[in-house]
Every structure is written in structure tokens, then in C-alpha cells.
């Protein structure tokens, strides 16, 4: 590990007083950031703290309103990503820009605007073996796991031999084992003198990996610290300010009354690269929270659609709610029976961006709550229900007439989760409940989910966030390539074992006691 203090050296990049505003918000407010060669520098902050904006400025995707950037001591103006790459800056995006139907080498060639020839083939093999990023250049991208896809992006960057590698939330899509492998690679790159800007909000990762951390909050730089000398709690306090939220695990006594049961749910993939579900078996009892871990793209969307009713099952008995076969019922009919669902995508799936909160409340609530008068939509009743959700879930907005799209991610998620919980479902299924929301909102959502289980609802949580699942679930399973693992009591499973399950092996076969 390289923990050099290179204060006497010239910084590789020095950003000073970076300021950038969007209509309505000041995303970056006079931020300073200095990175040295051979350093793994963390950029830490909550969602909305201004990390992405700062990185986009460094990579030439955005232009600053004020401030300066110096590269190896020379003032520069980075007007485009091409110019950033020419300087030696490479960026691995959080969301990959790969063509599924092309091979690895074709994707890399496209990104670098070169031919997919033998020379490139050899280079890819060289780079990938040198840094432990195993990759077959001739594989089709759609057949690769998310971790493997990330390797393509990293290799693509390394082929340009950058001086600074920026990684945007790289571990959000990886299993714990894959995270370990990635860290080995990153340390090796740093040892060879590359600077790495590592963007994350995961404190443990930053403590183990980074030698310096710049912490942002509300668009401002609040501190630059050595993560090794800080505790996770002190880092959290810096990152979140006063609103350090902690959720405790509530005591629950699940009954044996099975509310939601999947008995051999199978469904062929609808789309070309969709994931077929294979004989899923699972039951959730009243008062119980069951978690499903897994890396995105392993059938989570399909599972959610099958449960919510957006996809119908070939056999109605594959899915029961309160012992009633519902596999062929419409989403509305399932809601009437007590099932409420929250899909992963907030805008455009769980809510209509261009409609008001009141209309978005009516969207799903009209099945279980009287929001009509003599058959006609009652704006008054919708607004009253909406206000109830806004108050109970502390949604910051300008009232029921605000457009859904005008809310921040955390507030919209609180509203959507609240809309479903306020309908008092007996079965509640939620996918990625706290994906991309701030800590305060996440804590509120976790508490609400636990509270409804205590009141006797059966809850199923589908999530990539293992900490979240460990915190709130009673039993846990993992979804891998459309297959569900055995279900274990959460307290008997370690993170490492969960990673094994997410990789598709069973704990027993994985030889982890």
C-alpha cells in the first residue's frame, strides 16, 4: 500500500475554487481538490453532495462557472473529454456504455476509435493478465457478468495508459469477492505511480483502500482527511453533518402464517437479453422481512414483475397471496388482495414524472383507498391522502401539486414507499428501497419497513445493498442468473457467505462453514 505524503512534490492535478451552479442549485461551491501521483484519493459524499459534478468538470463534460484547474503545475482548461484523455485522465463510469451484442474487443476498439486487430487483441490480454483483470477479448458482452463488464471499462481506460484513473462508485454493482479483486488491482496501479480518484459513499471501502479523502457535503468541501486515522463514525459525521442517522434492528416475532408464497415460479425471458426465472421457491410469513440479495441483472426486474403482476405466470398457482392463487391476476386485482409493490426505477416506473404527487398517489392507491366519488376522480380525496403520505414520511415538496420530477431522489423515494405503506398492505414487496437516496431518507425507509413488519405485514426486500439486507431482514437468499439460493436466517450468514450465494454457489459447496 502506498501512503506517501508528497506535499513537496508537484501535484498531478490541483483544482481550486471550483464553482458550478445549475438552475435552482449550487452543485459545487468553491471546492478545492489536490491529487498526487501514486495516491488513491477518495472523493466522499452523499448523493447530491456534488461528487458527480466535480468529476464531470475534471473530465471535461461540464464547464466551471468559476475556479481553476492545474495539471502537473500548468493551468489548463479542459473543454472536452477528448482533451481530458489527451492529458491522461480516464474515467470508469458507474453505468457502463457497452454494446451488448458486440464482443469485448469490438467494444474496446469502438471506445478508442481504433481497429479491432491482432495487436489490440494482444494488448488486451497483456493488460488484463498484468493487473489480474481476467478477460476474454472474443466473448460477447451480453454473456458477461456486471463485474466482468466493469473490467472491460477498466481495461479500456488502462490501454490509454492514463496518469489519473477516476472510478465512479465502482463497487455498487459487485459482490464482496469481486470488490476484493478490484482493490488488489487498484493498489497495484497506485504502486506503479498512477493516481486514482475513487468516488464512493461506502466508508469501510474508503478506510481500507484510500490514503486521503476529500469529503463533500451540500456542494462544499468540508474536510480533507486521512481515512486510516478516522473511524467510520467520524467519517460519517463529516459526510452527513448533523443528520447522522442510525437504524436499529427491531425485535420481531414472525408468525407461521404464510402471506406470500412462490412455488416453483418459472418464466421465460421476454426480451433478448432478459433473464429467465427458474423454479423460484420462497415463502414470506406475516411479520417477517425476507431479503433477496444479488447483483443487478440476475432476474431482479423479472421477479418484481412476476410478483407485481406486470408479467403474468403460466400457472396461477405458482404465486399465492394469502393462500389465493394470483399468478394470472392483473396488478390491480393483486393490490385489492393486499399486495403493494415498489419497483426499482423511481421515475417512469414507480411514478409518472410529469404528473403531480396527488395524481401519482391516485396511480396505485385507488384500488385500496376510496379516492373517487360516484365513479369520478375526487381531487380533494387524492390531495388528502397525498398530504397524509407527505406528513407521515417527511417528504420535502411544495405540496400535493408538485410534479414528481421536481422532487429529489430521496424525497421521491420516501413518497413512493410512503404511498404504498399508507395503503396498509398485508404483503409488501420493494426493490432497491434506498438506491441512491441520502442517509436520512434511507433511515426513515428502513424504519418504516421494519415498523410495518411489526404490525404483521409480510415484507420482501430485493436489494443489491448487502448492509441494508443484513440490517433489516430476518431471512435472506440470493438471486443468481434467475435461480434463487436456499433461504437462510440472516444472523447465520456472513457477508462472505452471502457473496458466495450471489455468485451462484451454495454455502455448503463453497466450503464456508
Amino acid at each position: 500500500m502506498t501512503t506517501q505524503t508528497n506535499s513537496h512534490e508537484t501535484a498531478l492535478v490541483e483544482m481550486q475554487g471550483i464553482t458550478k451552479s445549475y438552475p435552482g442549485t449550487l452543485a459545487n461551491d468553491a471546492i478545492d481538490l489536490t491529487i498526487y501521483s501514486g495516491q488513491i484519493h477518495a472523493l466522499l459524499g452523499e448523493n447530491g453532495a456534488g461528487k458527480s459534478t466535480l468529476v464531470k468538470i475534471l473530465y471535461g463534460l461540464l464547464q466551471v462557472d468559476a475556479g481553476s484547474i492545474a495539471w502537473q503545475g500548468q493551468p489548463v482548461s479542459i473543454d472536452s473529454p477528448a482533451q481530458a484523455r489527451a492529458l491522461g485522465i480516464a474515467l470508469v463510469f458507474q453505468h457502463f456504455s457497452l454494446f451488448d451484442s458486440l464482443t469485448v474487443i469490438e467494444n474496446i476498439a469502438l471506445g478508442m476509435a481504433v481497429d479491432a486487430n491482432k495487436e489490440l487483441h494482444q494488448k488486451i490480454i497483456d493488460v488484463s493478465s498484468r493487473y489480474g483483470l481476467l478477460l476474454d477479448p472474443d466473448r460477447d458482452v451480453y454473456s458477461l457478468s456486471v463485474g466482468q463488464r466493469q473490467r472491460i471499462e477498466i481495461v479500456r481506460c488502462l490501454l490509454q495508459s492514463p496518469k489519473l484513473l477516476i472510478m465512479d462508485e465502482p463497487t455498487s454493482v459487485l459482490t464482496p469477492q469481486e470488490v476484493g479483486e478490484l482493490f488488489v488491482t487498484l493498489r497495484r496501479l497506485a504502486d506503479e505511480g498512477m493516481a486514482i480518484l475513487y468516488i464512493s459513499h461506502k466508508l469501510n471501502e474508503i478506510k481500507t483502500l484510500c490514503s486521503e479523502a476529500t469529503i463533500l457535503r451540500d456542494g462544499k468541501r468540508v474536510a480533507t482527511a486521512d481515512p486510516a486515522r478516522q473511524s467510520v463514525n467520524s467519517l460519517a459525521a463529516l459526510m452527513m453533518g448533523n443528520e447522522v442517522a442510525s437504524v436499529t434492528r427491531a425485535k420481531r416475532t414472525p408468525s407461521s402464517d404464510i402471506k406470500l408464497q412462490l412455488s416453483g415460479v418459472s418464466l421465460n425471458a421476454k426480451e433478448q437479453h432478459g433473464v429467465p426465472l427458474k423454479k423460484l421457491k420462497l415463502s414470506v410469513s406475516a411479520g417477517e422481512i425476507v431479503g433477496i440479495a444479488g447483483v443487478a441483472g440476475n432476474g431482479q426486474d423479472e421477479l418484481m414483475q412476476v410478483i407485481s403482476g406486470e408479467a403474468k405466470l403460466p400457472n396461477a398457482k405458482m404465486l399465492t397471496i394469502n393462500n389465493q392463487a394470483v399468478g394470472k391476476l392483473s396488478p390491480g386485482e393483486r393490490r385489492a388482495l393486499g399486495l403493494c409493490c415498489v419497483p426499482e426505477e423511481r421515475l417512469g416506473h414507480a411514478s409518472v414524472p410529469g404528473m403531480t404527487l396527488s395524481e401519482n398517489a391516485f396511480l396505485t392507491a385507488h384500488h385500496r383507498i376510496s379516492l373517487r366519488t360516484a365513479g369520478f376522480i375526487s381531487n380533494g380525496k387524492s390531495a388528502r391522502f397525498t398530504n397524509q403520505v407527505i406528513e407521515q414520511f417527511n417528504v420535502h415538496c411544495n405540496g400535493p401539486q408538485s410534479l414528481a420530477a421536481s422532487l429529489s431522489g430521496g424525497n421521491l423515494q420516501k413518497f413512493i414507499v410512503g404511498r404504498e405503506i399508507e395503503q396498509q398492505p398485508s404483503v409488501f414487496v420493494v426493490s432497491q428501497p434506498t438506491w441512491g437516496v441520502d442517509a436520512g431518507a434511507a433511515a426513515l425507509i428502513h424504519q418504516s419497513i421494519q415498523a410495518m413488519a411489526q404490525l404483521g405485514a409480510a415484507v420482501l426486500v430485493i436489494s443489491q445493498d448487502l448492509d441494508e439486507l443484513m440490517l433489516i431482514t430476518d431471512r435472506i437468499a440470493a438471486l443468481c442468473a434467475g435461480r434463487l439460493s436456499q433461504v437462510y436466517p440472516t444472523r447465520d450468514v456472513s457477508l462472505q457467505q452471502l457473496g458466495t450465494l450471489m455468485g451462484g454457489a451454495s454455502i455448503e459447496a463453497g466450503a464456508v462453514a
Partner: protein
Amino acid sequence: MISLQARAEPSKLMGFCAPLIALLVTLLAGLLLFAILGVPVGQAFYAFFIEPVSSLYGLSELGVKAAPLIMIAVALSIGFRANVWNIGAEGQLILGGVCGGAVALYFYEVDAWYVLPLMTLAGILGGMLWAAIPALLRTQFNANEILTSLMLTYVAALLLSMLVHGQLRDPDGFNFPESRLFHAAATLPIIMEGTRLHIGALVALLLVVVAWVLLSRTLLGFALRVNGNAPRAGLYAGFAQKRLVWFSLLFCGAAAGCAGLFEVAGPIGQLLPTISPGYGFTAIIVAFLGRLHPVGVVFAGLVMALSYLGGESAQISLNLPVAVTGVFQGMLLFFLLAADVLINYRVVWRKRPQANSGASL
């Protein structure tokens, strides 16, 4: 330097103002066009915009032209809100005229109260039948309704032409491609003595109210709007998308078919090879000019009706070509689409953004 800056959220004011801006710019561009053509601008303006509505008869004619436009545009805007792009209202209008007209000819000289209701029913069913074809193709085979409905318009026009040259031709009409003139019991009641303003104008207004309530107060209308705004949210909420496509197209087919029948049973009074000056297409512009809102469509329908009357008037008094109507309608849509940018963007004057260079050193 002028540049466009994204607004934090869409401007409601601009949503309202964009059609007015478009109208104003169309007016200016039109007058400029007249000036280039060498027509006295003042005279042209008077002939186009004032003369047609300067008499009671002129105003009634405005209603005659606006009625079918409003009927069709109201129905179209429901579909457009739901992401169902029916471009073939013209064909559905023709089929309505053909089917209703055929009923009138079948009951020729039968003087009974039921003839007109039967014709109306036939017209509505004819329009729905024609709209059902794209609906079926879209829901069963995922065929794009923009193409299918548009192409069916030409089939409908040829079908009408074939019938008035053949089976429905007036036996005593010296082989002219026209049907018999409809008898009194098969002709729409006039609501204003001495004009051609018929009961269809009232039906159009009734339809506006029905559509308004449907869109703003019923579950069906809500489902249509959700489907147009975010189809996946519609699926999640449990709205059956195929049914919404069927409804949108059939509703529009019914309205267009009814409008077509009102044309042949009203101002025209017989079947001709051409029974509409493109109402079905112009209604698309009306729908957008009216912001896809039933009430907005009423005003937009009146404006577009004026473009027809003004075009006729300009032909007569200034010897301008008939194309002048189309030019005005086209310009209006063109400027409207341009003005709509202002809903999501604001125009700002600013110096070139100074990058890092300004602050450093």
C-alpha cells in the same frame, strides 16, 4: 450571444403563450409573404382575417368549418395524450361519410324520423371500422399506427371515388361522379335560419365537454394520460395498454366518422369524390395548437377554420392561389413547434462562458 438555457421545470405560462406567439409570428410571416408576392399588405390582411368574419353569415360559416375540426381534434388529442398517434382521421372521416351517405341513399325519399339517426350511427360505425384496422395491427402485430392509419386514408379516398363513380352514382346525373342529393329527412337540421350552420356545431361542443370530463375526472382518462406520460408506470399501475390503444383509436374513429357524416348530410348534401378539404389532417394541427386540451381545441378550431375562410376570401378578392390556406396552416404548425421550445428552455443573452482562464493566474 443568444443561447438556450434549460428551465428547472417546464413553464406553465409558456405552455399557454406558445400558441399565441406562433399565431403572431405566422401573421407577420404571412404578411411578409404577401408583400413579397406584391399584394398590398393591408388589403391582404383585411381579406384574410377580417372580411370572412365581418358578417353574421361569415361567422356562421366559421362555425360550419370549425365544427368538424373541433370534433376530430378533441378525439385526436385524447389519443395523442395516450401516445396513440392516429394520423388517419381523414380516412375515418371519409368512411363515416360513405357509410352514412349509403344509408341516406338506401332510404332515399323515405320521410321518417329514424333516417338521420340511422345515418349518424352508420357514419360512426364506419369511422370506427376504419380506425379498428390500425388498432388491430398495432395491438396484434405491433405495427406502427402512424403509418397504417395514414395509408388507410388513401384507401378510403379511393373507395369513396370508386363508389361515386359506380354503385352510389346518381342514376339521373348524366354520369357525373356524384350521388343523388339527399332528401330533406336525410339532411341535418339548421340551427340558424338562412345559414348553413347545422346541429353538428352543438354536437362538437357537447363532445368537448365529454372529453374534458373524461380526461380530467375518470379512471379511463387518467389511464390514458399515464400511458402517454410513462407507459411503464401504466403497466405497474395495472392499466391494460392494448385496451387503451383500442379505445383511443375507436373513439377517434367514431368522432371522425360522425364529422364525415355531418359534412355529407349538412353543407354538402350528397356524396362527392371529395367530401373534406383535409379536415382530418388539419385537426392534427388544431389538437396541438389547442395544447391537447378540449377547451384549447375549441379556440384552435376557430383559428384554423378562419384559415380556410380567409384562404377562400383571398382567392376571390386578391386572386391568390388556393395553396395559401395550406401555407398558413403549415406555417402555424411550424412556428408552434418552434415556440414550444420555450416551455422547457429560456432564451438568455450572455457572453461566451469563460472557462478556467478567467479566474486563474
